[in-house]
């Protein structure tokens, strides 16, 4: 039997949900542990050093100076780096901070926060960077597994193929692929929010006039939200088409599909998504995939929606 591969895990600015995602492998975790030795897992072990490893799994995004230092130390210590979860791949939910300056964030949390008594932002902690950034803005990344957190089936497939040097079976499918709702053409005349009345659990949210981002989101989750009655909020990051084609964007793609399925004009959907950009682009705002689309005006949209607050 060959020597076990060494796996090291480090977290940057994130929520540690991805570490929990790994535990979601349940019994399958034993199959993975047959092939790997965990040498550094901050949530489980007391190893503080960046020990040498074959595979380094990084969760969380680059938000503080410490994150830069940690990412570079991991790159030096590991042969392959996996960007694990939506945070390192696209920036994650705190990407929404893109709509604010660093000073606004610190001000709102420490100085003008009605529920705390502090008056100063804490000193003697790693300096906050100007913006939230994906991992590959700092170091080279070998494997990207988006998802918030990635579904257990995808983690298992991704890790095993990396360890064995085979091609993963993960495909470029969108969330709709694993959703059980039927897309039917309807007479729905206007947009609805998910709390406006009741929704048929068998029918697609788009057909019922509710914005669901499943068709513009990469499936790394097996579509659990729609099965629980919640429209997709794109936590897995943009679909292949949006990543690769500069003229395609979340708002244009959802609008096209909704206009085809319902009586809602495409412009109304585009306008709604622009006005609620903070909600609909929340998880990947930090990613150059969106920012560098020449037509993309996120900062302007979010400012207008908030009335310049």
């Amino acid at each position: 039997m060959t020597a076990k591969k060494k796996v090291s895990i480090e977290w940057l600015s994130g929520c540690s949900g991805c570490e929990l995602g790994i535990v979601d492998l349940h019994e399958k975790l034993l199959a993975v542990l047959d092939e790997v030795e965990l040498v550094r897992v901050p949530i489980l072990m007391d190893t503080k050093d960046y020990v040498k490893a074959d595979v380094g799994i990084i969760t969380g995004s680059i938000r503080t100076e410490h994150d830069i230092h940690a990412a570079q130390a991991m790159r030096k210590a590991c042969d392959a780096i996996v960007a694990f979860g939506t945070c390192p791949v696209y920036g994650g939910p705190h990407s929404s901070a893109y709509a604010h300056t660093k000073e606004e964030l610190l001000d709102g949390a420490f100085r003008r926060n009605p529920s705390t008594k502090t008056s100063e932002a804490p000193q003697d902690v790693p300096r906050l960077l100007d913006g939230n950034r994906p991992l590959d803005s700092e170091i080279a990344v070998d494997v990207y597994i988006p998802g918030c957190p990635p579904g257990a089936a995808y983690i298992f497939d991704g890790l095993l193929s990396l360890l064995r040097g085979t091609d993963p079976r993960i495909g470029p499918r969108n969330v709709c692929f694993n959703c059980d709702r039927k897309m039917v053409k309807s007479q729905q005349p206007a947009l609805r929010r998910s709390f406006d009345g009741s929704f048929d659990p068998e029918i697609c949210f788009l057909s019922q006039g509710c914005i669901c981002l499943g068709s513009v989101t990469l499936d790394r989750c097996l579509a659990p939200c729609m099965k629980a009655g919640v429209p997709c909020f794109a936590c897995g990051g943009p679909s292949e088409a949006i990543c690769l084609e500069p003229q395609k964007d979340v708002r244009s793609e959802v609008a096209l599909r909704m206009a085809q399925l319902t009586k809602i004009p495409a412009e109304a959907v585009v306008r709604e998504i622009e006005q609620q950009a903070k909600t609909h682009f929340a998880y990947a705002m930090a990613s150059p995939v969106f920012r560098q689309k020449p037509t993309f005006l996120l900062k302007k949209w979010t400012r207008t929606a908030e009335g310049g607050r």
Partner: protein
Amino acid sequence: MPAVRIIDRGCRGCELCVDFCPVKVFERTSDERAAVKRQEDCIGCLSCVYLCPSRCIEVEGVPVLRPFHRIEEHAALIERFLQEKSGTSTLTPADWEEARKDLAARLLALSATVVETIGRGSKAMGRRAGALAATHLPEMYEEAGLDRVLASMKHRFRGAFEFDYSLSGERADLHFHPCGLCQVVEEAGEKVGEAVLCQLFHEYWAGLLTAFVGSQYRCEVPVAGRECRMELKPASAS
């Protein structure tokens, strides 16, 4: 020929592929899904691949070129040129010069890559590019004479370079003064006429005319420099 396949598990029955396919490859089935009915008609436009909400349609056998929008400097440059409401009036001569240099660097890098990758086959690639470009020009389908074709090419290329032409029978003589690539090649320190970029361009013209006329054309360039003379002759003539 493109091969079209629907992965049934992912079909949500939206019929976007049925509605949008320009050549009606898809049909709706009795169980409210889409099925591939006329694969032989597929023109490989990939509309269905991008429209399908599940991304469960696969089209194989179609070469796809990817844009470079993730290259940061490039995207930043485009952003400045597409500034909202500003038009191009706020751009300074320095901006245009930067854009020109950017394009020149890309052309040189592309031609170097072509030679490095396919070596001596690069001439054939230039011809193929011309033949493919011809299929995108309306003149190709009008059965217009060579005179008409060259006149409209002169108009189409007016932003990049000026040329005059004269016809004698099947043969066309083109006179560039200078060609738009001249400055690019000179700045790279290469010899005009012998640079890969020049040769690809010459073969491109041969490919264009071959496609328009329907018989093989050759390209010769006896004079190259600030002015270039290009002779386009039917291959059978010599």
